């Protein structure tokens, strides 16, 4: 209350603030606010945003343990304990989509993590700058597309009359309705993911590559290292911090997989391989209106995600000394 009263005065002689701060024995909140109230005022609306659209929904996760009535309180009506958690733990479909998530997450990591490194190393060997620039520009392009457009392109290419099936026919095969076949879904998903991310993923590696000290190469050459050994012993260790950072980030998004893309590309026929935790909880929430049940699954997924990223971070700090924070 007193701070609000102090405000006009503080603004009137704002230039005297440093002198007052010097007199103070360690700044107190009151002094800080009196001195910086204009700065704090800039933070009010953003803080409101964080509280309303991030922290309230974070607390809203309690509906995983409470009975929820649509139109009722967003925090639910009364406690039901671990009822919904027990429900999904006993739900065979949940374990099925859990396995699918692990498989798709692993495949995505295995391909989308190393491929940008490989592409960056190859680009780094290109001597003609214009060519390098051109390849880079082209490879970044898919990153700028909406997922809807990517999904639509995938459908066009893989349709019965699409280019891929023309190749299949040319090779003497029968046209395959790829998107209706569960055994094809993972390959389709991972390749489209690679198509969209590989070029953009090279940016940080290419930047890291330019920071490697030329003298190291010089020294390696004097020691008789050929180019392959130079790459192995100088280049790769040089970009290791970048690799570790991106690996941790990739592991952090391991569980969420490409939810939006799967939602666009899958259909009941491909559920056996395509359905993942996030799409399952989406259907539970929005098609079956089991909000509490879906929230319980979402909370479980988020907890795994947080655990993964914290673990990966801790391991990398111990072993290679690089960490996100």
């Amino acid at each position, binding site marked *: 209350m007193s701070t609000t009263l102090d405000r006009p005065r503080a603004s009137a002689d704002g230039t005297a603030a440093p002198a007052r701060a010097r007199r103070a024995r360690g700044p107190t909140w009151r002094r800080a606010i009196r001195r910086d109230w204009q*700065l704090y005022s*800039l933070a009010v609306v953003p803080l409101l945003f964080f509280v309303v659209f991030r922290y309230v929904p974070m607390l809203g996760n309690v509906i995983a343990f409470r009975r929820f009535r649509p139109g009722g309180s967003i925090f639910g009506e009364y406690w039901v304990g671990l009822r919904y958690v027990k429900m999904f733990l006993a739900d065979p479909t949940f374990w099925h989509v859990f396995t699918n998530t692990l498989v798709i997450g692993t495949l995505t990591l295995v391909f989308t993590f190393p491929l940008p490194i490989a592409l960056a190393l190859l680009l780094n060997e290109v001597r003609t700058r214009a060519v390098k620039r051109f390849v880079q520009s082209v*490879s970044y392009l*898919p990153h700028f597309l909406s997922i809807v457009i990517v999904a*639509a392109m995938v459908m066009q290419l893989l349709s019965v009359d699409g280019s891929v099936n023309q190749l299949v026919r040319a090779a003497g095969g029968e046209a395959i309705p790829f998107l209706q076949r569960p055994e094809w879904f993972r390959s389709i998903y991972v390749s489209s993911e690679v198509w969209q991310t590989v*070029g953009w993923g090279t*940016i940080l590696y290419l930047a890291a590559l330019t920071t490697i000290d030329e003298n190291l190469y010089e020294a390696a050459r004097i020691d008789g290292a050929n180019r392959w050994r*130079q790459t192995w012993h100088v280049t790769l260790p040089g970009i290791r911090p970048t690799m570790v950072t991106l690996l941790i980030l990739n592991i952090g998004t391991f569980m969420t997989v490409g939810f939006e893309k799967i939602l666009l590309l899958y259909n009941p026929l491909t559920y056996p391989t395509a359905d993942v935790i996030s799409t399952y909880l989406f259907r539970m929430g929005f098609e079956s209106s089991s909000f509490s049940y879906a929230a319980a699954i979402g909370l479980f997924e988020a907890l795994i995600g947080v655990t993964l990223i914290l673990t990966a971070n801790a391991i990398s700090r111990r072993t290679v000394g690089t960490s996100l924070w």
Partner: protein
Amino acid sequence: MTVERDSTTRADRLLRAARPRGITPTRGYRVFQGVNAVILTAVVVVTLYPFVNIVARSFSDQTEIIAGRVNLWPRGFNLTAYRLVMSDPMFWTNYRNTVVYTVVATAIAMVLTVCYAYVLSKPHVRGRPVLVGMAVVTMVFPPGLIPQYVLVTSLGLKNTIWAIVLPGAINVFNLLVMKSFFESLPVELEEAAAVDGLNTYGVLLRIVLPLSKAMVATMVLFYAVSFWNSWFTAFLYIDRLDLFPVTVYLRNLIAGATGAGNMGGTSDAVQSAATLQAVTIVLTVLPILFVYPFIQRYFVSGVMLGAVKG
């Protein structure tokens, strides 16, 4: 003969001098360069092919597409599908919505991001670690789809532009990039301006922002592209056709195509949808392709800045 050999060795010597990591290009290295060229060409072709194919399909005749004969070049060139899509008033309504949503969302996001980043960039602000933490925590603990939906619905934002614009108003990654940029600005200028009688708002508007033009432009692009491309929030919170952005228009067009409907393949409805899809894709992607060459380098520099601090 000898002259020729001489000249090649001279060329080699020149090459060696020009190459920063120059050791004698062994045969193995030359083979590698060849293989590398092939791989990179393949990367370019594979990246561009879907675009070329979609354009070819969009200009092609229905029957040629069904017969599976359209690849690089339109066959049975015609503009029927373009006329069809462009005469659909809903397409233009949705396109206009995308523009409006992008502009409003980007404007709000920029104001909030700049304000908060500026506060966070001042080391003397008391409680700064808490303010930074408030933002960073949301990166590690995402709010959750269901509670977010419940909240937006209970606030009565469904079927309004605010449901699309507000929940994504601050991207923490962008916020941190902006913050580290503000931190890199020289303090002396701001101090001088303060001595000249400018208050905090004046300093931010008249000194800091003009100094950050390139960075602000990068941030605007980051936000604008992500809002332009977004579909899921609209898909979740909007039920009215005339409020959809164009991405949801396209989504609804393709939604039927994966269904069991076209299983054995060639029902007329699905097939005619194929050309319409191609046209809609082309028309949606066009603005991005058009500005892409100009905005690309801003994006790259933005990512680097983020990584330095990140």
